[in-house]
């Protein structure tokens, strides 16, 4: 329960770090680390889907307003999509041996390789949605793919470092 109460603090922390630090670490003009997404990816499944969607919406919107990297609304759109897709993706990517019901699933308890299988496609899916909606058909699809790919790799690597540093007690 206490972990759920910590979520607002996480959210603020992620967004602040994203705006102040990660957002500045752009590489080659295409790879932008969106580490703030870790908050949504790690969002406890004890929170109902409906509420998760609402959280994602406001979280994404806050990101938009705070960083102004894309058009307002793009962040929230992609974030809500991420949460919706996550619901499906959990059932596909995480074997049932790790949980009985949705509420039982502890994402932090997943082995690293399993966690990566869960996280990387989610990230990529989000990035794709984000850049596609942002370009809105104005940019070539190749550019959208490139940005999504670069963003996913960059964010993935950084989040791995973060995970290794801060999340301990993982089952191996």
């Amino acid at each position, binding site marked *: 329960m206490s972990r759920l109460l910590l979520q607002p603090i996480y959210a603020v922390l992620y967004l602040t770090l994203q705006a102040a630090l990660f957002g500045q670490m752009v590489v080659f003009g295409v790879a932008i680390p969106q580490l703030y997404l870790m908050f949504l990816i790690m969002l406890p499944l004890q929170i109902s*889907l409906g509420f998760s969607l*609402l959280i994602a*919406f406001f979280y994404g919107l806050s990101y938009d307003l705070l960083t102004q990297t894309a*058009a*307002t*609304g793009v962040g929230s*759109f992609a974030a*809500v999509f991420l949460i919706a897709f996550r619901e499906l993706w959990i059932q596909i990517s995480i074997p049932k041996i790790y949980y009985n019901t949705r509420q039982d699933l502890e994402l932090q308890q997943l082995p690293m390789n399993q966690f990566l299988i869960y996280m990387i496609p989610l990230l990529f899916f989000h990035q794709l949605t984000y850049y596609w909606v942002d370009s*809105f058909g104005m940019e070539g699809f190749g550019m959208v793919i490139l940005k999504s790919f670069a963003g996913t790799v960059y964010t993935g690597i950084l989040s791995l470092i973060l995970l290794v540093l801060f999340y301990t007690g993982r089952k191996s």
Partner: protein
Amino acid sequence: MERVFDLILRFRNLILFLLLQGISLYLIIQINTRHNIVFGELAQNLTSSFQESRGRVFAYFNLIDENDKLLYQIKEIRQEYLKVRDELSLYKNQLPLRLEYRLIPDSLLPSEEFKFIPAQVVNNSLDKSYNFLTINKGYLNGVRKGMGVISEEGVLGQVVSVTDNYAMAMSILNKNFKLSAKIYQENFFGSLSWSGGSPEYADLEYIPLHVNIKEGDTIVTSGFSSIFPEGFRVGIIEEFEEKSEDGFYKIRVKLNSRPGNAYHVYVLSNMHRAEIDSLEKRISTYQ
């Protein structure tokens, strides 16, 4: 109602998802000009292509109606055509009074004796006793000495001199001009001439007293000369008096043509002129 509520409850997450995405899209489109433009174009394209396809489909289903309408219109037009044709044949009988009808270019009336050469008046006099008018068609256009000149309104004069590109015509307002004319209603002919004075009036002579005439009767060309065909309108009887001493009327005719206003004129080329002349010459040898 309960079922609806149940349904909403069941799909609440989906509804919430769609709602949030809707709000996001609304924000994207409303706040951001670039998206606004793109979305506007997209929506417009979608709507117009949809409307176009819908229009095509509806047009197909409306074909029967359209056919009926067209058939009805064809019927109407046919009736109109028959009516006009009847009217036209009616007018044809009154042809001498309908100058306009005769002014149809010769290509449309292939059997006509006269060919019309359109010309414009470039110089014109009214104030002299012997008035002339100059037109911009000459020998090269087929204009020859002796040809008649008319306007849409009536007789204007006769060509007296021709150069390559110009011709000079003796105006109806020339004391030397004589025109063989007749009273249309009575079919008696006389000689029309202008005695000077008002350019609106001329005199018709040699109409015998036994002819029953009245004011307003129409004077037309007699067709006795090869210059003007029969039935061209000249004017109407303004007033007349009986001159018992020589047995003829003295008729004042209000001229139909107004040489002062004439601009678009026609030179009348009689296709049989040479034939008529040679014939008349042959006769004159017996006189």
